[in-house]
């Protein structure tokens, strides 16, 4: 707990570094404000946005209430369409299943569609340890992978990198992963994109195994859906002989009619587009068209624990649009890495502690990484009341009584006692007012120092309000 008031050093300390990095803050400010404004315009175009948001929420809630039924229906539909369904209780099981499936093909490399689920389970690292190279093909994920970096945003994982840094990463690293960057590569977006295109094209054409996640799974037909902007996903989903999709169990929707709602709300919320450029759907396998083998790995990894929590389960509605990250004043200053998870920002602050638990310092600190301003809830296309879940998780963390929280609990209990005894409260207020000439502008000690490092303490009044009232109105 080194130095912080209430014993949650993890997020606050990581955030302190980001706050001190003026380039990072400028990059994040520019990027988040640009996309935030674009999203607001894209959403304002629809006069039925509120109804779509409510529909999305209700569809997800109904599906989650009957998740067992829809997952079994999905398994049946996928199997009937020629796919194979695997169930993974946790990250280790999912990684083992995927590794075995790749091994069975005899291949030692795979191409990947951008996927949060595979990042959540650390699939690339696991495959690498098993001698299988996994190539990210989304431009931003490629930048992150080549830079031996971590993603810092759900939609724009390299949001913390600028053009110059990307050029340097491409120049230095592309050669060791495959086709090197062209001679004299500049930092213009067109040249950077072309370098990535040439580098990736080689991998698409060679790959025999593709690995993806999915944005949605339609139970009635067993169809998986990926929405994307670059077309790299379409390449990975169609060119390889074997396709393996690792998908969280909460991604199922019952019918295509349900899907219709999300295909309107997701692109407007994430990239601020009316429709994303590529929407790929696939149902099992089709002779002579696309992969001849399809495996679906259904991932729990903490999701049923979240589902068991009546307040927390709404986090499972999330469609990973990132709108909450882009409006969050805390994310804007702290950056994505401070959240210590592939799910940063407000959604990460409620999802990660539910998926991973709150035993570690970072996980226990996440529910407090918010001023509860409510901007996230306002933009969420499936109406997740993120502040409500944050407070709920704070109750859980405080109730577990980890170190630092004992002191906090004592302070809170003392404050409640004083506030519940107005005679004592008034006496304290009067004492503070009468000694006000002696008060310094800065104070040492836990809490007071965190406050007075940045702000003056208020100048206390000559008397509290209740004394003014007694003298002037009674």
């Amino acid at each position, binding site marked *: 707990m080194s130095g912080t008031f209430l014993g949650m050093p993890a997020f*606050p300390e990581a955030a302190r570094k980001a706050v001190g990095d003026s380039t990072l803050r400028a990059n994040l400010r520019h990027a988040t404000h640009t996309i935030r404004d674009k999203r607001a315009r894209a959403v304002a175009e629809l006069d039925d946005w509120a109804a779509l948001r409510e529909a999305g929420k209700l569809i997800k809630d109904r599906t989650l209430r009957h998740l067992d039924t829809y997952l079994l229906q999905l398994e049946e539909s996928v199997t009937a369409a020629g796919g194979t369904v695997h169930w993974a209780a946790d990250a280790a099981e999912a990684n083992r299943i995927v590794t075995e499936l790749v091994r069975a093909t005899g291949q030692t490399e795979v191409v990947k569609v951008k996927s949060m689920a595979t990042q959540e389970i650390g699939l690339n690292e696991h495959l690498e340890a098993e001698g299988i190279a996994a190539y990210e093909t989304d431009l931003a994920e490629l930048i992150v992978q080549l830079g031996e970096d971590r993603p810092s945003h759900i939609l724009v994982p390299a949001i913390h990198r600028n053009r110059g840094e990307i050029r340097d990463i491409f120049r230095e690293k592309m050669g060791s992963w495959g086709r090197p960057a062209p001679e004299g590569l500049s930092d213009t977006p067109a040249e950077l994109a072309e370098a990535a295109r040439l580098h990736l094209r080689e991998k698409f054409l060679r790959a025999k195994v593709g690995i993806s996640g999915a944005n949605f799974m339609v139970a009635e037909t067993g169809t998986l859906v990926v929405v994307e902007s670059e077309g790299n996903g379409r390449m990975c989903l169609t060119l390889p002989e074997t396709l393996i999709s690792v998908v969280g169990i909460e991604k199922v929707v019952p019918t295509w009619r349900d899907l219709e709602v999300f295909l309107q709300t997701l692109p407007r919320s994430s990239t601020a587009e009316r429709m994303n450029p590529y929407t790929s759907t696939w149902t099992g396998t089709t002779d002579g068209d696309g992969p001849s083998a399809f495996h679906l790995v259904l991932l729990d990894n903490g999701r049923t624990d979240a589902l068991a929590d009546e307040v927390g389960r709404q986090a499972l509605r999330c469609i990973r649009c990132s709108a909450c990250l882009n409006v969050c004043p805390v994310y804007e200053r702290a950056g994505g890495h401070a959240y210590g998870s592939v799910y940063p920002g407000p959604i990460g602050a409620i999802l990660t502690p539910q998926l991973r638990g709150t035993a570690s310092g970072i996980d226990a600190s996440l529910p407090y990484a918010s001023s509860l301003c409510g901007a996230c809830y306002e933009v969420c296309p499936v109406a997740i009341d993120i502040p409500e879940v944050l407070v709920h998780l704070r109750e859980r963390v405080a109730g577990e009584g980890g170190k630092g929280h004992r002191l906090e609990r004592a302070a809170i209990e003392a404050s409640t006692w004083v506030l519940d005894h107005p005679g004592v409260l008034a006496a304290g207020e009067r004492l503070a007012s009468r000694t006000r000439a002696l008060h310094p502008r800065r104070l040492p000690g836990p809490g007071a120092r965190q406050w007075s490092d940045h702000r003056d303490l208020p100048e206390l009044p000559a008397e509290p309000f209740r004394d003014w009232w007694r003298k002037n109105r009674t």
Partner: protein
Amino acid sequence: MRVALFVTCVNDAVFPSTGVATVRLLERLGVTVDFPAAQSCCGQPQFNTGYRAQTEPLVRRTVRAFEGYEHVVTPSGSCAAMVRHHYPSFGTEAGALAPRVYELTEFLVDVLGVTDVGAYFPHRVTYHPSCHGLRLLGLGERPRRLLEAVKGLELVELPGAEECCGFGGTFAVKNPDVSAAMGADKITNALSTGAEVLCGADNSCLLHVGGMLRRQDAPLRALHLAEILASTEEEPWT
């Protein structure tokens, strides 16, 4: 009309002038104001920090203190939001207080039906809409309409007005660096307006932003909306 003033613990101890201004303003508008002395804190700090059990005694106290009042007026958006949004989860009796609590600008505009309260405040002012008033109560244009009707007042738009100032209760001490960075950006925006006064309707936010302004000796002071509305030509507020 008779109302109960819910002054809030922060105003009682640190900003009594906001309470005095609220009383003066309401009385000027013909309202009889009571101050039930049993009142204390609504429990928001405890609740938002994750201590529900420790919130309960304060919820019960608040509910008892305002028994029998149809209109409870408070010069704090976040305390009004605490009662309206979270008290119902503490039981029927607590929930019954929720619809009877009015944030000051709601009471003026919706219940009294006034926007021109006869105030005079010859200064350049910018308004920061605090998050809980903005998003949980939906105060909307009410504060702005009240300010626009103040004689002599020049209202200037605050860039990034809807962004949180970084206070957030215990957030300010649990995440001091992010909180201060948010506050610094709020101040930069406020200073860019050339205003003399940064006006808000929640003194907890002004405690934070005002504290940062004083630390920097900035040519701008934070002031609660009630104190601007209480100011008249005959009795100017200083």
